[in-house]
């Protein structure tokens, strides 16, 4: 079976809003960059196009019908995954693994600024009979989860706040980041309490942007580029959707997604074998909870490691050197591709002043946000 490589990347954004571009132009510009990077012509060189979008976030019924033209995919072979961009990566990877396709394009975007009532759409994802009639801002679910996670692990609010300080600082060195800032622990701790114990600065802010990538089979990849980034394994998993019966302390879906990806990638000791991790940090505590689920440390240990600087960009295990979603912005279904983009750039040695030294294996992780329990993980390497 052929190995699978990422051979081209293109990104526009991320910015708090990209007012000058329509969603189609946004996708077009990212696609042009990715095709240029890969050295391909989408009208003849691409076998399949995979896009990732969710109708309610786009404001369209059957949004997948609206995507071919801006990607150069009219009258070509295309489908849309209703999920995070990393799930699109899993599909692209599998297509090439079948041996029937050599080149696949992956696209995910966020035009969050077009959506005037994002929180109403998220609230609409709650159970209509059991939960929705209670009303309220849907992020109360995150407040409840953080509270139980802190209770069970003895993680402190300071340790959660440290995630924000680290990620926003990392984002200062990332031209694709919308919300880089040099802030103090006190600023985070003193920011408005929104959903006790979750504070305002611990919540990622939506951003506009688009990521397009070109994937290729081994034989095509080696012709196209001398810097392929190999997809070594992907995994995904969904826990029960019921708020009432789910685990409120551990991200068990992410745990199983990671185990699936590690098995394919032959990762036996993630902490030692993974050189950098891009982990979902939609809320600061989620970075810690996800690190534990991804087996980068023991349950309840992530807060301490963060406090000690282990997860800093120049630490022993850099986590979210891109700035994460707290620093780059919450790109809705493109969130996973924000992570993927950083891992690719780092493994190519093209991450500029946030480059982590001596990196060979990177981990990209996504979670589909409130109120979901879907986790996706991908292991990548610059060594075949």
């Amino acid at each position, binding site marked *: 079976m052929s190995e699978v490589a990422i051979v081209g990347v293109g990104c526009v954004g991320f910015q*708090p809003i990209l007012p000058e571009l329509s969603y189609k132009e946004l996708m077009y510009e990212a696609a042009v960059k990715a095709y240029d990077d890969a050295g391909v012509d989408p009208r003849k060189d691409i076998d399949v196009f995979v896009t990732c979008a969710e109708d309610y976030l786009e404001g369209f019924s059957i949004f997948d019908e609206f995507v071919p033209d801006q990607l150069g995919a009219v009258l070509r072979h295309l489908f849309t995954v209703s999920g995070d961009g990393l799930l699109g990566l899993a599909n692209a990877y599998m297509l090439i693994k079948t041996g029937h396709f050599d080149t696949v394009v992956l696209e995910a975007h966020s035009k969050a600024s077009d959506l005037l009532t994002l929180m109403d759409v998220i609230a609409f994802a709650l159970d*209509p009979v059991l939960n929705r009639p209670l009303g309220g801002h849907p992020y109360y679910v995150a*407040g409840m989860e953080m509270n139980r996670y802190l209770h069970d692990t003895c993680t402190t609010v300071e340790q959660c706040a440290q995630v924000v300080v680290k990620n926003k600082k990392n984002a200062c060195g990332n031209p694709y980041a919308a919300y880089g800032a040099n802030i103090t622990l006190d600023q985070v701790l003193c920011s408005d309490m*929104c959903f006790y114990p*979750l504070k305002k600065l611990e919540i990622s802010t939506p951003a506009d942007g688009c990521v397009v990538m070109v994937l290729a089979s081994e034989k095509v990849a080696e012709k196209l580029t001398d810097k392929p980034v190999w997809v070594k394994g992907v995994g995904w998993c969904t826990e029960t959707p019921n708020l*009432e019966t789910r685990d409120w302390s551990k991200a068990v879906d992410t745990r199983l997604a990671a185990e699936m990806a590690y098995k394919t990638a032959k990762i036996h000791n993630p902490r030692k074998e993974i050189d950098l991790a891009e982990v979902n940090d939609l809320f600061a505590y989620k970075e810690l909870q996800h690190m534990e689920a991804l087996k980068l440390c023991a349950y309840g240990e992530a807060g301490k490691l963060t406090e000690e600087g282990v997860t800093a960009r120049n630490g022993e295990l850099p986590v979210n050197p891109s700035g994460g979603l707290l620093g780059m912005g919450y790109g809705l279904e493109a969130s996973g591709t924000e992570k993927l983009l950083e891992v690719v750039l780092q493994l190519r040695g093209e991450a500029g002043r946030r480059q982590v030294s001596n990196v060979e294996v990177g981990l990209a992780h996504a979670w589909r946000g409130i109120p979901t329990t879907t986790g996706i993980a991908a292991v990548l390497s610059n060594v075949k």
Partner: protein
Amino acid sequence: MSLDKITNPMHVRHWLGDMEADYIYTLGVAGERFFKEIKENGKIMGAKCPRCNIIYVPPRMYCEKCFAKLEGWVDVGTRGVVHTFTVAKIDVDGKKLQKPEIYALIKFEGACGGLIHKIGETTPEKVKIGMKVDAVFKPSFERKASINDIKHFKPAE
């Protein structure tokens, strides 16, 4: 290059659109019984898996662990324990709430799951994980077979 950047999307030339989408959500067999018991008898019911011996609250038709069809209804009482909670200070539009709202997952003894609901008749500082709470039902003539037939949960005496 202009120094004046557009920061409000409403200031860009645009077309304003909205989605009209109304639904009814069928309660189903398990939901029908669950809400009927709440409305008519002020009882919170669970459904039991004959294979796993798990009692699910809220009840459903099938077991999410072994996929068996659930059989048998169990009254789990109206006193539960706060598994976790939060105090929401803002509403869905991001506006500050005049009175913060306490949301919690309340679990019932011997049952898997529980109910997401609000906690009332107390102040946020007094709510703790592990505290016992009782369901407060609306008067029967006001009940509509809805989760809101339970007004809230209050600290147990």
